């Protein structure tokens, strides 16, 4: 018995990983249990042993921890351009690591899934909080919030555009050094940190 338990967990994880990929790629509605079981190399019956329905698989996915973060970055002194770059890179790394998962979250938000909506809101406020805390080391509360919101908007718009334009190659597009440099330059402009340098 004790030997079988880890194996059962492992199968469960493999089902969830395959489902994240298929749901993310072709949508929850268009994906069948058969496609998932084929991908994992199980019979439908074996899959039903772990999950009673497609909906139950989705609930299992929502409960998954995100790979590679997000780790909370806290201010360690007045915000510098280097620290802003670190925050942006960490944010993009999480987006790359969890590309299919985040794609699925957005698709399901648009399909009206409340859990997906809450998870997306949580991820967004995570970045917003971190940026606000950092800007508070160089400016007042109102201004810190505005600059944080501006950068959250930039990151949202820019990464969404990459996702739409590059489709399956989204992760590679986000890892591109030229793309990251451009995004950083934009964030630097919105942060007003660049002007302190020349002052």
């Amino acid at each position: 018995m004790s030997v079988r338990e880890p194996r059962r967990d492992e199968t469960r994880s493999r089902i969830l990983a395959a489902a994240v990929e298929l749901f993310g790629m072709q949508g929850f509605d268009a994906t069948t249990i058969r496609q998932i079981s084929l991908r994992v190399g199980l019979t439908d019956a074996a899959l039903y042993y772990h999950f009673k329905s497609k909906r139950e698989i989705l609930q299992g996915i929502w409960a998954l921890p995100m790979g590679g973060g997000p780790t909370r970055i806290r201010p360690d002194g007045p915000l510098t351009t280097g620290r802003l770059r670190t925050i942006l890179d960490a944010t993009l790394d999480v987006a790359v690591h969890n590309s299919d998962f985040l794609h699925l979250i957005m698709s399901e938000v648009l399909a009206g899934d409340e859990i997906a909506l809450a998870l997306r809101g949580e991820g967004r406020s995570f970045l917003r909080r971190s940026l606000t805390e950092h800007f508070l080391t160089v400016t007042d509360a109102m201004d810190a919030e505005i600059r944080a919101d501006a950068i959250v908007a930039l990151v949202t718009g820019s990464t969404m555009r990459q996702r739409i334009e590059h489709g399956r190659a989204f992760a590679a597009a986000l890892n591109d050094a030229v793309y990251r440099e451009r995004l950083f330059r934009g964030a630097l402009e919105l942060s007003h940190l660049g002007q302190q340098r020349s002052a």
Partner: protein
Amino acid sequence: MARSLGLSDPAVHYYFNSKQALYEALLEQPDYGPLPLDNAPLTYESLLRQVTYIFNWWADRAGFGRMLLREQLAGEAASVGFLAGCKADWDRHVAAPLEELFGSEAAWRSDVVFDVVAGQYWDAILAYGETASEVMRQPYFSTRLAQILRLAIPEGPGQQP
């Protein structure tokens, strides 16, 4: 859909042969009508009004924006092409005036402003669903957009505040 328009099914079919034909008609490039800069001299403030006008046009059509985003995330080709068309349109309406004010870095700045504005829009669509148009019309929301825009398009290029 016919019911929501107060039309009969055949009446809708008279104009559009299929759901696909209707979808394709929706994906014609947006007709913003006369824009603020069509009738006003280019100044910092009139450029901000231009950008805000385009945002509000989209804010009033959040249901359309939501449908588009769903198709775009699913990789549907016409909707993906639509975004490229919108960006080209944006560059005509925003990058060109930015160039007069900012010179050579206008293309880069137009990209930044586009992403910031699109980010605010997509965020509202995802966060507020059916009520997104209404949320975007609230004073809190438009004030925040104006504040963000002033960071993306600083007044008096080259000047330090």
